[in-house]
Protein backbone atom coordinates (compact mmCIF):
# COMPACT_ATOMS: atom_id res chain seq x y z
CA UNK A 1 0.00 0.00 0.00
CA UNK A 2 2.65 2.43 1.06
CA UNK A 3 4.73 1.42 -1.91
CA UNK A 4 2.04 2.41 -4.40
CA UNK A 5 1.62 5.76 -2.71
CA UNK A 6 5.36 6.33 -2.82
CA UNK A 7 5.30 5.45 -6.49
CA UNK A 8 2.67 8.09 -6.98
CA UNK A 9 4.60 10.80 -5.21
CA UNK A 10 7.96 9.79 -6.62
CA UNK A 11 7.51 9.74 -10.36
CA UNK A 12 10.40 9.36 -12.74
CA UNK A 13 13.10 11.71 -11.65
CA UNK A 14 12.90 14.87 -13.76
CA UNK A 15 9.24 14.40 -14.55
CA UNK A 16 9.93 13.01 -18.01
CA UNK A 17 7.88 10.38 -19.84
CA UNK A 18 6.36 7.48 -17.88
CA UNK A 19 8.02 4.63 -19.73
CA UNK A 20 11.69 5.44 -20.00
CA UNK A 21 13.68 4.22 -22.97
CA UNK A 22 15.44 0.90 -22.35
CA UNK A 23 18.88 2.42 -22.77
CA UNK A 24 18.18 4.97 -20.07
CA UNK A 25 16.94 2.46 -17.50
CA UNK A 26 20.31 1.36 -16.19
CA UNK A 27 21.76 4.85 -16.33
CA UNK A 28 18.89 6.18 -14.28
CA UNK A 29 18.14 3.35 -11.86
CA UNK A 30 21.53 1.75 -11.33
CA UNK A 31 21.70 2.58 -7.60
CA UNK A 32 18.47 0.67 -6.93
CA UNK A 33 19.64 -2.31 -8.95
CA UNK A 34 22.97 -2.28 -7.14
CA UNK A 35 21.12 -2.16 -3.81
CA UNK A 36 19.00 -5.24 -4.52
CA UNK A 37 21.65 -7.17 -6.49
CA UNK A 38 23.44 -8.90 -3.58
CA UNK A 39 20.38 -10.90 -2.61
CA UNK A 40 19.70 -12.12 -6.15
CA UNK A 41 23.33 -12.95 -6.89
CA UNK A 42 23.65 -14.90 -3.63
CA UNK A 43 20.35 -16.63 -4.24
CA UNK A 44 21.33 -17.72 -7.74
CA UNK A 45 24.74 -19.01 -6.63
CA UNK A 46 23.97 -20.48 -3.19
CA UNK A 47 20.21 -21.06 -3.42
CA UNK A 48 19.00 -21.98 -6.87
CA UNK A 49 22.10 -23.54 -8.35
CA UNK A 50 22.58 -26.08 -5.52
CA UNK A 51 18.92 -27.11 -5.67
CA UNK A 52 19.08 -27.72 -9.42
CA UNK A 53 22.47 -29.38 -9.10
CA UNK A 54 21.18 -31.69 -6.36
CA UNK A 55 18.51 -32.92 -8.76
CA UNK A 56 21.21 -33.74 -11.29
CA UNK A 57 23.26 -35.45 -8.58
CA UNK A 58 20.26 -37.56 -7.56
CA UNK A 59 20.42 -39.14 -11.02
CA UNK A 60 24.04 -40.18 -10.54
CA UNK A 61 26.34 -42.39 -8.51
CA UNK A 62 29.16 -40.36 -6.99
CA UNK A 63 31.42 -40.55 -3.94
CA UNK A 64 32.70 -37.01 -4.30
CA UNK A 65 36.13 -38.02 -5.59
CA UNK A 66 35.93 -40.44 -8.53
CA UNK A 67 34.09 -40.11 -11.86
CA UNK A 68 30.39 -39.25 -11.78
CA UNK A 69 28.27 -42.08 -13.27
CA UNK A 70 24.85 -41.29 -14.64
CA UNK A 71 22.38 -43.91 -13.36
CA UNK A 72 18.99 -42.42 -14.27
CA UNK A 73 16.30 -43.10 -11.70
CA UNK A 74 18.16 -45.96 -10.03
CA UNK A 75 18.71 -44.00 -6.79
CA UNK A 76 14.98 -43.34 -6.50
CA UNK A 77 14.26 -46.98 -7.27
CA UNK A 78 16.59 -48.01 -4.46
CA UNK A 79 15.03 -45.41 -2.16
CA UNK A 80 11.56 -46.91 -2.60
CA UNK A 81 12.78 -50.27 -1.31
CA UNK A 82 15.19 -48.95 1.35
CA UNK A 83 13.89 -50.02 4.78
CA UNK A 84 16.29 -47.64 6.56
CA UNK A 85 14.87 -44.70 4.63
CA UNK A 86 11.27 -45.64 5.43
CA UNK A 87 12.20 -46.14 9.07
CA UNK A 88 13.59 -42.58 9.05
CA UNK A 89 10.41 -41.28 7.39
CA UNK A 90 8.26 -43.04 10.01
CA UNK A 91 10.38 -41.71 12.89
CA UNK A 92 10.28 -38.19 11.50
CA UNK A 93 6.50 -38.24 11.12
CA UNK A 94 5.95 -39.70 14.61
CA UNK A 95 8.22 -37.11 16.21
CA UNK A 96 6.68 -34.32 14.15
CA UNK A 97 3.04 -35.15 14.97
CA UNK A 98 3.85 -36.12 18.55
CA UNK A 99 5.52 -32.78 19.21
CA UNK A 100 3.52 -30.36 17.06
CA UNK A 101 0.06 -31.16 18.44
CA UNK A 102 0.82 -30.72 22.17
CA UNK A 103 3.26 -27.90 21.43
CA UNK A 104 0.74 -25.74 19.58
CA UNK A 105 -1.96 -26.55 22.14
CA UNK A 106 0.20 -25.47 25.07
CA UNK A 107 1.44 -22.44 23.13
CA UNK A 108 -2.12 -21.27 22.55
CA UNK A 109 -3.00 -21.84 26.18
CA UNK A 110 0.05 -19.91 27.40
CA UNK A 111 -0.64 -17.07 24.97
CA UNK A 112 -4.25 -16.89 26.14
CA UNK A 113 -3.14 -16.70 29.79
CA UNK A 114 -0.47 -14.11 28.99
CA UNK A 115 -3.04 -12.03 27.17
CA UNK A 116 -5.04 -11.57 30.34
CA UNK A 117 -4.17 -8.38 32.14
CA UNK A 118 -1.64 -9.86 34.53
CA UNK A 119 1.57 -8.69 36.16
CA UNK A 120 5.07 -9.83 35.20
CA UNK A 121 4.05 -10.31 31.58
CA UNK A 122 7.49 -9.23 30.34
CA UNK A 123 9.32 -11.62 32.65
CA UNK A 124 7.09 -14.53 31.61
CA UNK A 125 7.70 -13.84 27.94
CA UNK A 126 11.46 -13.82 28.42
CA UNK A 127 11.30 -17.10 30.37
CA UNK A 128 9.22 -18.76 27.64
CA UNK A 129 11.38 -17.48 24.82
CA UNK A 130 14.72 -18.41 26.39
CA UNK A 131 14.75 -22.09 25.23
CA UNK A 132 14.41 -20.93 21.65
CA UNK A 133 17.50 -18.72 21.56
CA UNK A 134 19.98 -21.09 23.17
CA UNK A 135 22.03 -23.50 21.12
CA UNK A 136 20.49 -26.88 20.48
CA UNK A 137 23.88 -28.58 20.84
CA UNK A 138 24.33 -27.41 24.44
CA UNK A 139 20.74 -28.18 25.34
CA UNK A 140 20.84 -31.61 23.69
CA UNK A 141 23.83 -32.37 25.91
CA UNK A 142 21.82 -31.28 28.98
CA UNK A 143 18.83 -33.38 27.88
CA UNK A 144 21.19 -36.28 27.30
CA UNK A 145 22.20 -36.18 30.95
CA UNK A 146 18.66 -35.62 32.28
CA UNK A 147 17.46 -38.67 30.35
CA UNK A 148 20.55 -40.80 30.82
CA UNK A 149 19.63 -44.39 31.63
CA UNK A 150 22.03 -44.89 34.50
CA UNK A 151 22.35 -41.59 36.36
CA UNK A 152 19.78 -39.28 34.75
CA UNK A 153 17.41 -37.09 36.68
CA UNK A 154 14.35 -38.55 34.94
CA UNK A 155 15.14 -42.11 35.98
CA UNK A 156 16.24 -40.91 39.43
CA UNK A 157 12.81 -39.41 39.85
CA UNK A 158 11.08 -42.59 38.68
CA UNK A 159 13.22 -44.67 41.01
CA UNK A 160 12.40 -42.35 43.92
CA UNK A 161 8.69 -42.80 43.20
CA UNK A 162 9.14 -46.57 43.06
CA UNK A 163 8.29 -46.71 39.36
CA UNK A 164 10.11 -48.80 36.73
CA UNK A 165 12.93 -46.95 34.99
CA UNK A 166 12.79 -46.12 31.29
CA UNK A 167 15.52 -46.54 28.67
CA UNK A 168 15.09 -42.96 27.45
CA UNK A 169 18.05 -43.10 25.07
CA UNK A 170 18.21 -46.81 24.33
CA UNK A 171 14.71 -48.11 23.56
CA UNK A 172 12.72 -47.42 20.39
CA UNK A 173 9.68 -45.56 21.64
CA UNK A 174 11.45 -43.91 24.55
CA UNK A 175 14.01 -42.37 22.19
CA UNK A 176 11.22 -40.82 20.15
CA UNK A 177 9.52 -39.60 23.33
CA UNK A 178 12.74 -37.92 24.51
CA UNK A 179 13.12 -36.19 21.13
CA UNK A 180 9.46 -35.11 21.24
CA UNK A 181 9.95 -33.62 24.71
CA UNK A 182 12.98 -31.70 23.47
CA UNK A 183 11.11 -30.22 20.52
CA UNK A 184 8.17 -29.26 22.72
CA UNK A 185 10.48 -27.67 25.27
CA UNK A 186 12.31 -25.63 22.65
CA UNK A 187 9.43 -24.37 20.51
CA UNK A 188 6.35 -23.94 22.75
CA UNK A 189 7.41 -20.50 23.98
CA UNK A 190 8.27 -19.30 20.48
CA UNK A 191 4.82 -20.24 19.21
CA UNK A 192 3.19 -18.73 22.30
CA UNK A 193 4.87 -15.38 21.53
CA UNK A 194 3.50 -15.54 17.99
CA UNK A 195 0.00 -16.41 19.20
CA UNK A 196 0.19 -13.59 21.74
CA UNK A 197 0.89 -11.09 18.96
CA UNK A 198 -2.07 -12.54 17.07
CA UNK A 199 -4.33 -12.21 20.13
CA UNK A 200 -3.34 -8.58 20.57
CA UNK A 201 -4.39 -7.84 17.00
CA UNK A 202 -7.98 -9.11 17.52
CA UNK A 203 -10.38 -6.14 17.74
CA UNK A 204 -11.65 -5.87 21.32
CA UNK A 205 -15.15 -4.91 20.17
CA UNK A 206 -15.74 -8.59 19.39
CA UNK A 207 -15.14 -9.56 23.00
CA UNK A 208 -17.22 -6.66 24.26
CA UNK A 209 -20.16 -7.77 22.12
CA UNK A 210 -19.79 -11.38 23.29
CA UNK A 211 -19.75 -10.26 26.90
CA UNK A 212 -22.91 -8.26 26.40
CA UNK A 213 -24.46 -11.46 25.10
CA UNK A 214 -23.28 -13.24 28.25
CA UNK A 215 -20.70 -15.52 26.62
CA UNK A 216 -18.37 -17.35 29.03
CA UNK A 217 -14.57 -17.09 28.74
CA UNK A 218 -14.42 -20.55 27.20
CA UNK A 219 -17.17 -19.67 24.75
CA UNK A 220 -15.28 -16.49 23.77
CA UNK A 221 -12.13 -18.53 23.28
CA UNK A 222 -13.82 -21.04 20.97
CA UNK A 223 -16.02 -18.62 19.04
CA UNK A 224 -13.80 -15.56 18.72
CA UNK A 225 -10.18 -16.28 19.56
CA UNK A 226 -9.62 -19.48 17.59
CA UNK A 227 -11.37 -18.35 14.35
CA UNK A 228 -9.65 -14.94 14.41
CA UNK A 229 -6.28 -16.59 14.95
CA UNK A 230 -6.62 -18.94 11.99
CA UNK A 231 -4.04 -17.21 9.75
CA UNK A 232 -1.53 -17.14 12.61
CA UNK A 233 -2.22 -20.79 13.36
CA UNK A 234 -1.60 -21.58 9.70
CA UNK A 235 1.74 -19.80 9.93
CA UNK A 236 2.79 -21.81 13.01
CA UNK A 237 1.61 -25.10 11.51
CA UNK A 238 3.61 -24.48 8.33
CA UNK A 239 6.78 -23.48 10.19
CA UNK A 240 6.37 -26.46 12.53
CA UNK A 241 6.02 -28.75 9.53
CA UNK A 242 9.18 -27.45 7.88
CA UNK A 243 11.04 -27.60 11.20
CA UNK A 244 9.68 -31.02 12.14
CA UNK A 245 10.56 -32.57 8.79
CA UNK A 246 14.10 -31.19 8.91
CA UNK A 247 14.87 -32.34 12.47
CA UNK A 248 18.60 -33.02 12.70
CA UNK A 249 20.56 -31.47 15.58
CA UNK A 250 18.48 -33.00 18.37
CA UNK A 251 18.91 -36.66 17.37
CA UNK A 252 22.45 -36.14 16.08
CA UNK A 253 23.77 -34.67 19.34
CA UNK A 254 21.47 -36.43 21.82
CA UNK A 255 22.16 -39.90 20.43
CA UNK A 256 25.82 -39.43 19.50
CA UNK A 257 26.92 -41.39 22.57
CA UNK A 258 23.87 -43.62 22.93
CA UNK A 259 25.26 -46.65 21.15
CA UNK A 260 24.92 -47.73 17.55
CA UNK A 261 27.05 -46.13 14.86
CA UNK A 262 27.66 -42.39 14.96
CA UNK A 263 25.00 -40.41 13.09
CA UNK A 264 22.64 -43.37 13.01
CA UNK A 265 20.06 -42.15 15.52
CA UNK A 266 20.86 -44.47 18.42
CA UNK A 267 20.19 -48.20 18.94
CA UNK A 268 18.06 -49.70 16.18
CA UNK A 269 18.12 -46.33 14.41
CA UNK A 270 15.06 -45.50 16.52
CA UNK A 271 15.93 -41.80 16.44
CA UNK A 272 17.04 -41.68 12.80
CA UNK A 273 15.34 -38.78 10.99
CA UNK A 274 15.24 -38.03 7.26
CA UNK A 275 17.80 -35.22 7.36
CA UNK A 276 20.06 -37.23 9.67
CA UNK A 277 19.86 -40.12 7.18
CA UNK A 278 20.70 -37.73 4.37
CA UNK A 279 23.68 -36.45 6.35
CA UNK A 280 24.69 -40.01 7.18
CA UNK A 281 24.61 -41.09 3.52
CA UNK A 282 26.40 -37.95 2.27
CA UNK A 283 29.07 -37.31 4.87
CA UNK A 284 29.78 -40.65 6.51
CA UNK A 285 29.05 -42.99 3.56
CA UNK A 286 30.05 -40.44 0.87
CA UNK A 287 27.14 -41.52 -1.29
CA UNK A 288 26.34 -38.08 -2.72
CA UNK A 289 23.95 -39.38 -5.39
CA UNK A 290 21.76 -41.23 -2.94
CA UNK A 291 21.86 -38.38 -0.38
CA UNK A 292 20.57 -36.04 -3.10
CA UNK A 293 17.73 -38.43 -3.89
CA UNK A 294 16.81 -38.40 -0.17
CA UNK A 295 16.85 -34.60 -0.23
CA UNK A 296 14.41 -34.55 -3.13
CA UNK A 297 12.15 -37.11 -1.48
CA UNK A 298 12.08 -34.82 1.56
CA UNK A 299 11.22 -31.88 -0.67
CA UNK A 300 8.27 -33.78 -2.16
CA UNK A 301 7.11 -34.82 1.31
CA UNK A 302 7.36 -31.25 2.62
CA UNK A 303 5.38 -29.93 -0.36
CA UNK A 304 2.63 -32.51 0.14
CA UNK A 305 2.29 -31.59 3.81
CA UNK A 306 2.38 -27.87 3.04
CA UNK A 307 -0.58 -28.34 0.66
CA UNK A 308 -2.49 -30.47 3.19
CA UNK A 309 -1.87 -27.92 5.95
CA UNK A 310 -3.01 -25.14 3.70
CA UNK A 311 -6.23 -26.96 2.90
CA UNK A 312 -6.92 -27.85 6.54
CA UNK A 313 -6.33 -24.52 8.17
CA UNK A 314 -7.36 -22.20 5.35
CA UNK A 315 -10.51 -20.29 6.20
CA UNK A 316 -13.63 -22.28 5.59
CA UNK A 317 -15.39 -19.37 3.94
CA UNK A 318 -12.84 -19.53 1.13
CA UNK A 319 -13.59 -23.23 0.64
CA UNK A 320 -17.34 -22.63 0.59
CA UNK A 321 -16.90 -19.84 -1.96
CA UNK A 322 -14.89 -22.08 -4.23
CA UNK A 323 -17.47 -24.85 -3.99
CA UNK A 324 -20.23 -22.41 -4.76
CA UNK A 325 -18.35 -21.07 -7.75
CA UNK A 326 -17.71 -24.57 -9.03
CA UNK A 327 -21.41 -25.37 -8.66
CA UNK A 328 -22.24 -22.26 -10.62
CA UNK A 329 -19.92 -23.25 -13.45
CA UNK A 330 -21.49 -26.70 -13.63
CA UNK A 331 -24.88 -25.15 -14.10
Amino acid at each position, binding site marked *: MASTSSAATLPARAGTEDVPRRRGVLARYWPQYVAIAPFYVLFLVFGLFPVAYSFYLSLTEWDGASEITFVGLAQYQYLLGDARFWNAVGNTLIIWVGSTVPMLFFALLIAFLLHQNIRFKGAYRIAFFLPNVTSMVAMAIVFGSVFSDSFGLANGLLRGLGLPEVGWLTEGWSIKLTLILMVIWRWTGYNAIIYLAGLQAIPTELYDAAKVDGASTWRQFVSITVPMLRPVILFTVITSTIGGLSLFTEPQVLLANAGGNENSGGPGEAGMTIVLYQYNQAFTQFDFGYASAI*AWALFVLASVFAIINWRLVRDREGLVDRRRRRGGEAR
Partner: protein
Amino acid sequence: MSTTDLGTARLGDPTQQRADRAIVRRSRAGRVVIHVCLVLAALLSIFPFYWLVAMATQSTAEIFGYPPKLTFGGQLLANVRDVVTSIDLLDALLNTVFVAGASAVLVMLFDSLAAFAFAKYRFPGRDKLFVVLLVTFLLPGSLSLVPSFILVSRLGWVGGFESLIIPGMANAFGIFLLRQIASSSIDDSLIESARIDGAGFFKTWWFVGVPMMRGGLAFLGIFTFIAQWNDYVWPLIVLVDPERQTLQTALQSLNTIYNTEYGMVMAGALISVVPLIVVFALGARHLIANIGAGALKG
Protein backbone atom coordinates in the same frame (compact mmCIF):
# COMPACT_ATOMS: atom_id res chain seq x y z
CA MET B 1 5.50 -3.28 35.41
CA SER B 2 4.76 -0.02 33.61
CA THR B 3 7.55 -0.61 31.09
CA THR B 4 6.22 -3.96 29.93
CA ASP B 5 2.73 -2.55 29.70
CA LEU B 6 4.09 0.14 27.39
CA GLY B 7 5.83 -2.50 25.31
CA THR B 8 2.73 -4.56 24.73
CA ALA B 9 0.53 -1.56 24.15
CA ARG B 10 2.79 -0.43 21.34
CA LEU B 11 2.46 -3.82 19.68
CA GLY B 12 -1.28 -4.00 19.53
CA ASP B 13 -4.22 -1.69 19.51
CA PRO B 14 -3.95 1.29 21.88
CA THR B 15 -7.35 0.46 23.32
CA GLN B 16 -6.05 -3.01 24.14
CA GLN B 17 -5.15 -2.34 27.74
CA ARG B 18 -8.54 -1.06 28.66
CA ALA B 19 -10.08 -4.17 27.12
CA ASP B 20 -7.56 -6.43 28.85
CA ARG B 21 -8.57 -4.98 32.13
CA ALA B 22 -12.21 -5.51 31.28
CA ILE B 23 -11.69 -9.13 30.26
CA VAL B 24 -10.07 -10.02 33.52
CA ARG B 25 -12.08 -8.10 35.98
CA ARG B 26 -12.50 -11.42 37.64
CA SER B 27 -11.95 -13.01 40.98
CA ARG B 28 -8.62 -12.98 42.73
CA ALA B 29 -8.76 -16.79 42.66
CA GLY B 30 -8.86 -16.84 38.86
CA ARG B 31 -5.79 -14.63 38.75
CA VAL B 32 -3.93 -16.92 41.15
CA VAL B 33 -4.73 -19.93 38.96
CA ILE B 34 -3.35 -18.10 35.91
CA HIS B 35 -0.12 -17.27 37.73
CA VAL B 36 0.26 -20.82 39.03
CA CYS B 37 -0.05 -22.20 35.49
CA LEU B 38 2.36 -19.64 34.05
CA VAL B 39 4.91 -20.10 36.82
CA LEU B 40 4.86 -23.87 36.33
CA ALA B 41 5.38 -23.48 32.60
CA ALA B 42 8.14 -20.92 33.18
CA LEU B 43 9.89 -23.28 35.60
CA LEU B 44 9.82 -26.08 33.02
CA SER B 45 11.19 -23.63 30.49
CA ILE B 46 14.05 -22.52 32.69
CA PHE B 47 14.87 -25.75 34.52
CA PRO B 48 17.32 -27.15 31.93
CA PHE B 49 19.39 -23.96 32.27
CA TYR B 50 19.44 -24.30 36.04
CA TRP B 51 20.41 -27.94 35.65
CA LEU B 52 23.19 -27.01 33.22
CA VAL B 53 24.66 -24.56 35.74
CA ALA B 54 24.26 -27.07 38.57
CA MET B 55 26.09 -29.80 36.67
CA ALA B 56 28.83 -27.47 35.48
CA THR B 57 29.64 -26.80 39.14
CA GLN B 58 29.78 -30.47 40.13
CA SER B 59 32.46 -33.09 39.71
CA THR B 60 31.75 -35.99 37.39
CA ALA B 61 31.49 -38.30 40.42
CA GLU B 62 28.83 -36.07 41.97
CA ILE B 63 26.88 -36.00 38.70
CA PHE B 64 26.92 -39.80 38.49
CA GLY B 65 25.81 -40.19 42.12
CA TYR B 66 22.39 -41.22 43.40
CA PRO B 67 20.20 -39.52 44.48
CA PRO B 68 20.97 -36.72 41.99
CA LYS B 69 22.37 -33.61 43.62
CA LEU B 70 20.12 -30.66 42.81
CA THR B 71 22.28 -27.93 44.32
CA PHE B 72 25.46 -26.24 43.11
CA GLY B 73 28.85 -27.78 43.77
CA GLY B 74 32.26 -26.13 44.03
CA GLN B 75 33.89 -27.54 40.91
CA LEU B 76 33.09 -24.84 38.34
CA LEU B 77 36.62 -23.42 38.06
CA ALA B 78 38.18 -26.88 37.93
CA ASN B 79 35.75 -27.94 35.20
CA VAL B 80 36.39 -24.79 33.17
CA ARG B 81 40.14 -25.35 33.50
CA ASP B 82 39.70 -28.92 32.23
CA VAL B 83 37.76 -27.67 29.21
CA VAL B 84 40.30 -25.00 28.33
CA THR B 85 43.22 -27.42 28.54
CA SER B 86 41.43 -30.17 26.59
CA ILE B 87 40.12 -28.32 23.56
CA ASP B 88 40.47 -24.88 22.07
CA LEU B 89 37.09 -23.65 23.24
CA LEU B 90 38.31 -20.09 23.62
CA ASP B 91 39.50 -20.01 20.01
CA ALA B 92 36.15 -21.44 18.98
CA LEU B 93 34.44 -18.73 21.03
CA LEU B 94 36.38 -15.98 19.24
CA ASN B 95 35.65 -17.60 15.86
CA THR B 96 31.96 -17.70 16.67
CA VAL B 97 31.90 -14.07 17.79
CA PHE B 98 33.61 -13.13 14.52
CA VAL B 99 31.30 -15.20 12.30
CA ALA B 100 28.11 -14.13 14.07
CA GLY B 101 29.18 -10.48 14.29
CA ALA B 102 30.31 -10.22 10.66
CA SER B 103 27.12 -11.94 9.48
CA ALA B 104 24.93 -9.59 11.51
CA VAL B 105 26.65 -6.46 10.15
CA LEU B 106 26.57 -7.66 6.53
CA VAL B 107 22.94 -8.77 6.73
CA MET B 108 21.93 -5.40 8.18
CA LEU B 109 23.86 -3.61 5.40
CA PHE B 110 22.62 -5.59 2.39
CA ASP B 111 19.07 -6.19 3.59
CA SER B 112 18.48 -2.54 4.47
CA LEU B 113 19.82 -1.36 1.10
CA ALA B 114 17.51 -3.73 -0.77
CA ALA B 115 14.55 -3.02 1.52
CA PHE B 116 14.99 0.73 1.11
CA ALA B 117 15.08 0.45 -2.69
CA PHE B 118 12.00 -1.82 -2.75
CA ALA B 119 9.99 0.30 -0.33
CA LYS B 120 10.75 3.82 -1.49
CA TYR B 121 11.73 3.79 -5.17
CA ARG B 122 10.03 2.81 -8.35
CA PHE B 123 12.17 1.09 -10.98
CA PRO B 124 11.38 -1.22 -13.87
CA GLY B 125 10.81 -4.83 -12.77
CA ARG B 126 10.55 -3.93 -9.09
CA ASP B 127 7.30 -5.73 -8.33
CA LYS B 128 8.22 -8.87 -10.26
CA LEU B 129 11.60 -9.04 -8.54
CA PHE B 130 9.91 -8.73 -5.17
CA VAL B 131 7.58 -11.63 -5.95
CA VAL B 132 10.64 -13.72 -6.84
CA LEU B 133 12.10 -12.81 -3.45
CA LEU B 134 8.95 -13.99 -1.67
CA VAL B 135 8.93 -17.28 -3.57
CA THR B 136 12.49 -18.07 -2.44
CA PHE B 137 11.08 -18.44 1.10
CA LEU B 138 9.62 -21.74 -0.06
CA LEU B 139 12.91 -23.47 -0.82
CA PRO B 140 13.96 -25.60 2.16
CA GLY B 141 17.62 -25.24 3.11
CA SER B 142 18.32 -28.88 3.89
CA LEU B 143 17.64 -29.71 0.24
CA SER B 144 20.97 -28.35 -0.87
CA LEU B 145 23.42 -29.58 1.78
CA VAL B 146 25.35 -31.82 -0.61
CA PRO B 147 25.57 -29.52 -3.65
CA SER B 148 26.25 -26.49 -1.43
CA PHE B 149 29.17 -28.37 0.07
CA ILE B 150 30.44 -29.27 -3.40
CA LEU B 151 30.06 -25.66 -4.54
CA VAL B 152 31.90 -24.30 -1.52
CA SER B 153 34.67 -26.83 -1.96
CA ARG B 154 35.07 -25.82 -5.65
CA LEU B 155 35.36 -22.23 -4.50
CA GLY B 156 38.12 -23.35 -2.14
CA TRP B 157 36.22 -22.15 0.92
CA VAL B 158 35.95 -25.46 2.79
CA GLY B 159 37.34 -25.05 6.28
CA GLY B 160 37.15 -21.26 6.08
CA PHE B 161 34.67 -18.92 7.70
CA GLU B 162 33.70 -17.29 4.39
CA SER B 163 31.65 -20.42 3.74
CA LEU B 164 29.59 -19.58 6.84
CA ILE B 165 29.32 -15.82 6.27
CA ILE B 166 28.99 -15.14 2.53
CA PRO B 167 26.08 -17.39 1.44
CA GLY B 168 23.74 -15.86 4.03
CA MET B 169 24.76 -12.22 4.00
CA ALA B 170 21.56 -11.08 2.28
CA ASN B 171 18.30 -12.87 2.94
CA ALA B 172 14.66 -12.68 1.90
CA PHE B 173 13.35 -12.67 5.48
CA GLY B 174 15.26 -9.53 6.49
CA ILE B 175 14.52 -7.68 3.25
CA PHE B 176 10.83 -8.47 3.60
CA LEU B 177 10.71 -7.36 7.22
CA LEU B 178 12.67 -4.12 6.70
CA ARG B 179 10.66 -3.26 3.60
CA GLN B 180 7.47 -3.41 5.68
CA ILE B 181 9.04 -1.09 8.23
CA ALA B 182 10.45 1.31 5.62
CA SER B 183 7.12 1.49 3.76
CA SER B 184 5.17 2.46 6.84
CA SER B 185 7.67 4.60 8.74
CA ILE B 186 9.61 6.64 6.17
CA ASP B 187 7.75 9.62 4.87
CA ASP B 188 8.08 10.24 1.14
CA SER B 189 8.54 13.96 1.73
CA LEU B 190 11.81 13.23 3.55
CA ILE B 191 13.14 11.41 0.53
CA GLU B 192 11.91 14.10 -1.79
CA SER B 193 13.64 16.83 0.19
CA ALA B 194 16.84 14.76 0.31
CA ARG B 195 16.65 14.53 -3.47
CA ILE B 196 16.16 18.29 -3.82
CA ASP B 197 19.21 18.79 -1.60
CA GLY B 198 21.13 16.79 -4.19
CA ALA B 199 21.53 13.53 -2.21
CA GLY B 200 21.78 10.39 -4.35
CA PHE B 201 20.28 7.02 -3.50
CA PHE B 202 23.05 5.82 -1.20
CA LYS B 203 23.30 9.10 0.69
CA THR B 204 19.54 9.12 1.18
CA TRP B 205 19.66 5.51 2.36
CA TRP B 206 22.33 6.31 4.93
CA PHE B 207 20.99 9.62 6.24
CA VAL B 208 17.23 9.05 5.93
CA GLY B 209 16.58 5.33 5.56
CA VAL B 210 18.92 3.80 8.14
CA PRO B 211 17.87 6.08 11.04
CA MET B 212 14.21 5.44 10.30
CA MET B 213 14.71 1.66 10.12
CA ARG B 214 16.90 1.37 13.20
CA GLY B 215 14.36 -0.54 15.31
CA GLY B 216 13.98 -3.21 12.63
CA LEU B 217 17.74 -3.20 12.01
CA ALA B 218 18.43 -3.85 15.69
CA PHE B 219 16.06 -6.79 15.61
CA LEU B 220 17.57 -8.17 12.42
CA GLY B 221 21.09 -7.81 13.80
CA ILE B 222 20.27 -9.64 17.05
CA PHE B 223 18.28 -12.28 15.20
CA THR B 224 21.09 -12.96 12.72
CA PHE B 225 23.71 -13.00 15.47
CA ILE B 226 21.78 -15.59 17.47
CA ALA B 227 20.98 -17.72 14.41
CA GLN B 228 24.62 -17.77 13.31
CA TRP B 229 25.84 -18.42 16.83
CA ASN B 230 23.62 -21.50 17.03
CA ASP B 231 24.01 -22.78 13.48
CA TYR B 232 25.21 -26.36 13.59
CA VAL B 233 24.56 -28.50 10.48
CA TRP B 234 26.36 -26.30 7.98
CA PRO B 235 29.47 -25.63 10.13
CA LEU B 236 29.56 -29.35 10.92
CA ILE B 237 29.86 -30.04 7.19
CA VAL B 238 32.23 -27.30 6.03
CA LEU B 239 34.55 -26.76 9.01
CA VAL B 240 36.81 -29.72 8.28
CA ASP B 241 39.87 -28.30 10.04
CA PRO B 242 39.87 -29.28 13.76
CA GLU B 243 41.85 -26.11 14.49
CA ARG B 244 39.17 -23.85 13.01
CA GLN B 245 35.81 -24.63 14.60
CA THR B 246 32.84 -22.69 15.95
CA LEU B 247 31.49 -23.16 19.46
CA GLN B 248 28.77 -25.58 18.42
CA THR B 249 31.03 -27.97 16.51
CA ALA B 250 33.77 -27.71 19.15
CA LEU B 251 31.21 -28.46 21.85
CA GLN B 252 29.99 -31.53 20.01
CA SER B 253 33.53 -32.88 19.64
CA LEU B 254 34.07 -32.25 23.35
CA ASN B 255 30.85 -34.18 23.97
CA THR B 256 31.83 -37.19 21.87
CA ILE B 257 35.52 -37.37 22.79
CA TYR B 258 35.12 -36.84 26.56
CA ASN B 259 31.64 -38.29 26.91
CA THR B 260 32.33 -39.79 30.35
CA GLU B 261 33.67 -36.54 31.85
CA TYR B 262 30.36 -34.91 32.43
CA GLY B 263 31.42 -32.02 34.64
CA MET B 264 33.80 -30.81 31.97
CA VAL B 265 31.34 -31.22 29.09
CA MET B 266 28.72 -29.28 31.03
CA ALA B 267 31.20 -26.48 31.75
CA GLY B 268 31.85 -26.32 27.99
CA ALA B 269 28.14 -26.17 27.26
CA LEU B 270 27.76 -23.41 29.83
CA ILE B 271 30.53 -21.36 28.21
CA SER B 272 28.78 -21.70 24.84
CA VAL B 273 25.41 -20.56 26.21
CA VAL B 274 26.26 -17.65 28.53
CA PRO B 275 27.33 -15.01 25.93
CA LEU B 276 24.19 -15.70 23.95
CA ILE B 277 21.95 -15.26 26.97
CA VAL B 278 23.62 -11.89 27.56
CA VAL B 279 22.87 -10.84 23.95
CA PHE B 280 19.32 -12.09 24.36
CA ALA B 281 18.87 -10.18 27.62
CA LEU B 282 20.03 -6.98 25.92
CA GLY B 283 17.70 -7.35 22.97
CA ALA B 284 14.84 -9.41 24.36
CA ARG B 285 12.21 -6.74 23.92
CA HIS B 286 13.09 -6.01 20.27
CA LEU B 287 13.34 -9.69 19.51
CA ILE B 288 10.08 -10.81 21.10
CA ALA B 289 8.08 -7.90 19.66
CA ASN B 290 9.35 -8.43 16.13
CA ILE B 291 9.05 -12.23 16.12
CA GLY B 292 5.33 -11.82 16.77
CA ALA B 293 4.87 -8.91 14.39
CA GLY B 294 6.78 -10.70 11.61
CA ALA B 295 4.48 -13.70 11.86
CA LEU B 296 1.41 -11.50 11.66
CA LYS B 297 2.59 -9.84 8.47
CA GLY B 298 3.83 -13.06 6.92
